[in-house]
């Protein structure tokens, strides 16, 4: 299932906000190793620093301390330009709030990172169409986000995250704004991605999502407090119980 090599490695990672008496340690000395093809779920209560950790891993925030390496290359101290390049080519993001452009159709939203990465409009459109078919929205490609359900919007967002064939997909509470049915749709999608060998780091507070992972890390007050290897990942009985197709 996984290789012993690390695709993503964080050592002593930290992020503070404020200063003096108002200092807040959002992430405090986190060590993380994610192997290629692995799905890691990070769970914890609200405000424990999960989202901040994901933003640090994806270069959306600069760490206050520690190091981050992606495929052996340092990430934390890169220039803004280099981080942007990384986000275009190596990292895909899925946000809790979907964050689709309201005035762009589903296919236009999906192809946008491709255009930003310099793909030709034709190539970006072809890839976007293909991805929408994979997430089951081929017949919704011309719809605006306002005409899509929550689950459909999140599937568009997942397709967008995959447009540039990233090394790793970082998902921040991907089912946080979804109802049960939509949650299952998205979970099936993540399961499919996992089976295809995509490396995933998913921040969630939902057990059903965690059950699809290879490893579950618990986080509290900015630090990791527990780590559990999930036997068989989504192929166990647990997956069947929560409505996913299991082995």
């Amino acid at each position: 299932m996984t290789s012993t090599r690390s695709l993503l490695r964080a050592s002593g990672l930290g992020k503070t906000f404020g200063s003096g008496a108002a200092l807040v340690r959002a992430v405090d000395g986190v060590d993380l190793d994610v192997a290629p093809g692995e799905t890691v779920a990070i769970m914890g209560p609200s405000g424990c620093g999960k989202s901040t950790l994901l933003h640090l891993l994806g270069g959306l925030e600069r760490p206050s301390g520690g190091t981050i390496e992606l495929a052996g290359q340092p990430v934390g101290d890169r220039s803004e330009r280099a981080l942007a390049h990384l986000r275009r080519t190596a990292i895909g993001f899925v946000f809790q709030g979907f964050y689709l452009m309201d005035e762009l159709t589903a296919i236009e939203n999906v192809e946008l990172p491709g255009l930003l990465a310099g793909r030709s409009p034709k190539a970006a459109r072809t890839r976007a169409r293909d991805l929408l078919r994979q997430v089951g929205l081929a017949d919704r490609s011309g719809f605006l986000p306002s005409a899509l359900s929550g689950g459909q919007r999140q599937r568009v967002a997942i397709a967008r995250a995959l447009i540039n064939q990233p090394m790793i997909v970082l998902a921040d509470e991907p089912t946080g704004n979804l109802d049960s049915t939509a949650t299952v749709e998205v979970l099936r999608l993540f399961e499919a991605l996992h089976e295809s060998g995509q490396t995933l780091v998913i921040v969630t507070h939902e057990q059903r999502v965690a059950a699809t992972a290879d490893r579950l890390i618990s986080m509290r007050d900015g630090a990791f407090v527990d780590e559990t290897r999930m036997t068989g990942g989504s192929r166990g009985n647990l997956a069947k119980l929560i409505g996913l197709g299991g082995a």
Partner: protein
Amino acid sequence: MVFLVIAAAATTLTVAFALSGVTNKPYQQTRLATAGPDVVAIEGGSPGPAQPMSSAQVAAAATSLTKAPGVVAHSGPYPTAYSAIRFRGHTVDVVAEGRDQAPAPVDQPKVTQGGWIRPGTVVIERGFADALGVHVGDNVRIGGRSFRVAGIAVTAAIPPYPSSLCHIACPFPAAVQGIGVPNMGLVWLTRSAVAGLAGSGGPLAYLLNLKLANPAQAPAFAAQHPNSITWESIQSAINALIGIEQAALGVGGWLLGLLALAGLGVLAGRRMTEQSKRVGLLKAVGATPATVAVVLLVEQLTLAAGAAAAGLVAGWLIAPALTGTGAGLVGAPGAPSISVSAVIIIAAIALAVAAISSLVPAIRAARTSTVSALADAPRVPSRRPLVNAVSAHLPVPLLLALRQLSRRPRRALLNTASITTTVTGIVAILASHAHTPIADLTISNLKLDRFNELTAIITVMLIILAAVNTTFIAWATAADGRFSSALERALGATTGQVTAGLSMTALLPALPGAIIGIPLGIAVYHLLSSGTTLAVPPVWQLVGTFLATLLAVTVLTAIPSRLGARRSPAQVLQTE
């Protein structure tokens, strides 16, 4: 900023109105001091080749006028000749009037320095002396002869320098063809000296100053006796000095008003967006959409009324600085007066500008659903499929810019309008300078100096207001585009690309504005000047204006664009 832009426009219009008739008082004072005539009759002053008159003809013409009903006193006829004065390297055309040493009962020029004429001396009209830089005791050459300046004086019988004096008689071919009228100075010499200037053919014209029993009858008298001018027309000629300033200020005021409209349109839109929750609360407690729209409009109108009042006061205070009448008249213009109708017009314009710019945003805000307004939900931007398709083929900064522009097309149009108005004003001013009057520009030309001063002031005001508009639009764009910019960076756009994209959202609309403003400015000046030939500024000035406009827009928008793209994408996305 609403206050600032409306006040600036109101100030300019107020000054324009305040200049109306500002020279009337000094002219009346000069008439009193010099026993100014009610009518000046001119004999032998028709345009075209000079027609010398015999003494008998002059006497007969004078008698018929001095004996006319209503005439109670007269002086003259005085011979006049055209020549040129040379002083310290300057050569200027002059009208030389031959006078007696004894005081005249009508039109005795008031000597303000030195004394009256004596043989071998000349007295120079004060406005002309001021421009020429000549003083009592200096030696000047007129018609090849040397004269010592005995004195400097003012008169109410002829408009002071820099007026054309061609209503007297104008033998210059240029004036006959209507191309332009040269500015001439007025000097007084002895009768014999003027006769010597004119040569063997005798003086070109004779001036007869008449006093009427009822000065108000002057127009009727002039209507019955051709080749005569009234004191009112002399006063109007003097007012023309201010008239050109009034025209410039009037146009400047309108241009500033248009700029205010463009800037307020963006301001009002932003303000309404910020008041979304307030709108929701009003509607939740039962206010109808009409009531909500009225509430929002009243706020803008109240601000506009205050700004108009401030502009009126500022204009009234500034106007005296522009109402100096020059050296040619005695007395000061006094405090400028603004009529009630002018106050009403200026206030109405200010309120109209505020109302027009706020109407659409107020109606839109009033039509927003109560729940959306309470939730302070952002307005879904317009969708432009063609723009999205075309922009996909462009470099990333242009892609981002075009899509940002398509979200707020009205703002882009207002930006274009603002730049168009500014460039139009600047090019019109450049065209006016290119339309050089036929004058000796080596000496101080009061009219030209004042016009240059005024147009410089208007240009600076236009540029400042346009700069404020452009900067504010850039801030508003960066603020409105916070979420999309952060998302674009999260998806892989660099800070530089996003910054460049935000800058281009200002530059792209400015480009057509700068282009359109050039022919528009030339056309505006052509219309105002009623000229037969088109005054086109030099190409280098037009190109310079175009490039300077684009550079200014780039520089002004660089900071807000940069700041708009620097915040951490994660922080922005979480906040939004």
